[in-house]
């Protein structure tokens, strides 16, 4: 069963974890991981956090050291897969060659959502997804003094905090009426707007960008309505587009992401998928969910590796996320989709630590925990148990 060549498309968190998982599960055939970036596979979350702020090093960024791949006979290939031919069991690469496989894992991740405005290609305007992006931003930040961030999601806010730490003036432009609108309760949005303003960041909500303006490089961000905001550099963080084209063109079921079952199998059970590119029907939330989460990528990848080795290890771990901004460690347990009740512990309008619990019909769905790791770990447990909790119980359970 474990002879042949396992080919992993994508060399980020999920892809590398599939490769490692294959070896851990005793896969004795070949393992090839194809990725399109030149660097050794690396941790993405620190890019907008500690790595941008300069408090972590390149060495800390590597997912595994170089020797790991040699030691475990995992072949890293830098190339771009352009096609999957399921019938021939081979992939096409961008140099025109093909590579055969017996087992295939799609860990194609995502790419930044682009902003369709004039001047977006101007020097000084950056997106943030890759190591190379952050190197460019850091270089630009070294000589600039005013940064404009387009997008008040986690990446945008983390970038704002990191650039502030580097001493820049920072303006965040958010098109919606509040930052983090898609992902958190209004109380949490208000909290982050407050702490960023306290740190000297200008937060503009309801701000629609209509163009980038400048000469040989960007000088201003133009808002709909005509207002012009000076900018030495612009970082655009307006979301992620999953890389599902390969799967779709190969005829696999795609619904926002590549649809996978509890064993990480795509609609072709011989092909697995994991990570940002995958949509998984989660029984706990009774819906198809595509998560942009390193822990979920790892969980799905472990399952995908087991499946390729002929073992059953259903995807089970509760999704969770984290975000570092200033001295604030936000840990999010679960998904808050469909909550009907909010319980807030602490005072987010004043404190720097609080927990926001999201309930649905008396059961805990999710919790946003700011500087409250104990609440986070307790919430993970309570959500996993799925029992009804009442407010008093919740408050007693988290007393620390």
């Amino acid at each position, binding site marked *: 069963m474990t002879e042949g060549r396992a080919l992993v498309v994508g060399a980020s968190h999920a892809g590398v974890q599939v490769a490692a998982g294959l070896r*851990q599960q005793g896969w004795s055939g070949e393992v090839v991981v194809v990725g399109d970036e030149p660097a050794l596979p690396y941790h993405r979350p620190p890019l907008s956090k500690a790595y941008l702020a300069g408090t972590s090093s390149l*060495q*800390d960024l590597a997912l595994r050291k170089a*020797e790991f791949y040699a030691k475990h006979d995992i072949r890293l290939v830098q190339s771009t897969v352009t096609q999957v031919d399921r019938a021939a069991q081979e992939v096409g690469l961008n140099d025109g060659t093909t590579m055969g496989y017996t087992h295939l894992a799609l860990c194609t991740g995502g790419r930044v959502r682009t902003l369709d405005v004039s001047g977006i290609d101007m020097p000084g305007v950056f997106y943030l997804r890759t190591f190379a992006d952050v190197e460019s931003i850091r270089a630009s930040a070294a000589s600039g003094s005013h940064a404009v961030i387009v997008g008040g999601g986690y990446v945008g806010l983390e970038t704002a905090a990191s650039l502030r730490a580097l001493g820049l003036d920072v303006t965040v432009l958010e098109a919606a009426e509040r930052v983090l609108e898609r992902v958190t309760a209004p109380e949490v949005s208000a909290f982050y707007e407050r702490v960023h303003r306290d740190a000297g960041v200008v937060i503009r909500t309801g701000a629609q960008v209509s163009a980038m303006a400048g000469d040989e490089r960007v000088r201003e961000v133009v808002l709909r309505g005509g207002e012009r905001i000076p900018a030495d550099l612009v970082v655009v963080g307006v979301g992620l587009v999953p890389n599902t084209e390969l799967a779709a063109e190969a005829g696999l079921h795609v619904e926002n992401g590549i649809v996978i079952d509890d064993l990480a199998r795509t609609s072709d059970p011989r092909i697995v998928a994991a990570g940002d590119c995958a949509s998984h029907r989660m029984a706990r939330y009774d819906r198809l969910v595509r998560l942009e989460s390193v*822990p979920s990528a790892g969980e799905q990848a472990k399952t995908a590796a087991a499946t390729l080795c002929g073992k059953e290890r259903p995807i089970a771990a509760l999704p969770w996320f*984290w975000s*570092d901004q200033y001295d604030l460690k936000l840990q999010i347990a679960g998904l808050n989709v469909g909550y009907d009740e909010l319980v807030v512990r602490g005072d987010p309008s004043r404190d720097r630590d609080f927990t926001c619990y999201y309930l649905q019909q008396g059961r805990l769905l999710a919790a946003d925990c700011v500087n409250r*790791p*104990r609440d986070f*770990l307790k919430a993970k447990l309570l959500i996993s148990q799925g029992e009804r909790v009442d407010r008093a119980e919740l408050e007693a359970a988290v007393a620390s």
Partner: protein
Amino acid sequence: MSVVTFISHDGEKHETPLEEGVSLMQVAVDNMVPGIDGDCGGEAACGTCHVVVEDGWIDQVGRSGPVEEEMLAMNPEREANSRLSCQMRLSDSLDGLVVRLPEFQL
């Protein structure tokens, strides 16, 4: 060669080379020591790299810091010598270090 030893919950020993300057979690992940996940990549955010330092070593290794302490506080397998291995930087003076792994990571 300097080494560190991980003892799994069922008593299995994994001896790995000690690499100066990197975290104990990273050494475990690089050597595929089962039972250390390190989901968050070393930011003390997930609590999946919990180890218990063997008695003779805790003074040299040092005890958990405040952030780490918060992450460990809720852990049912927490012991006096518990640490998050991502917060432990290795140096050659720790040659021979022995840590035990809990039954479950969070």
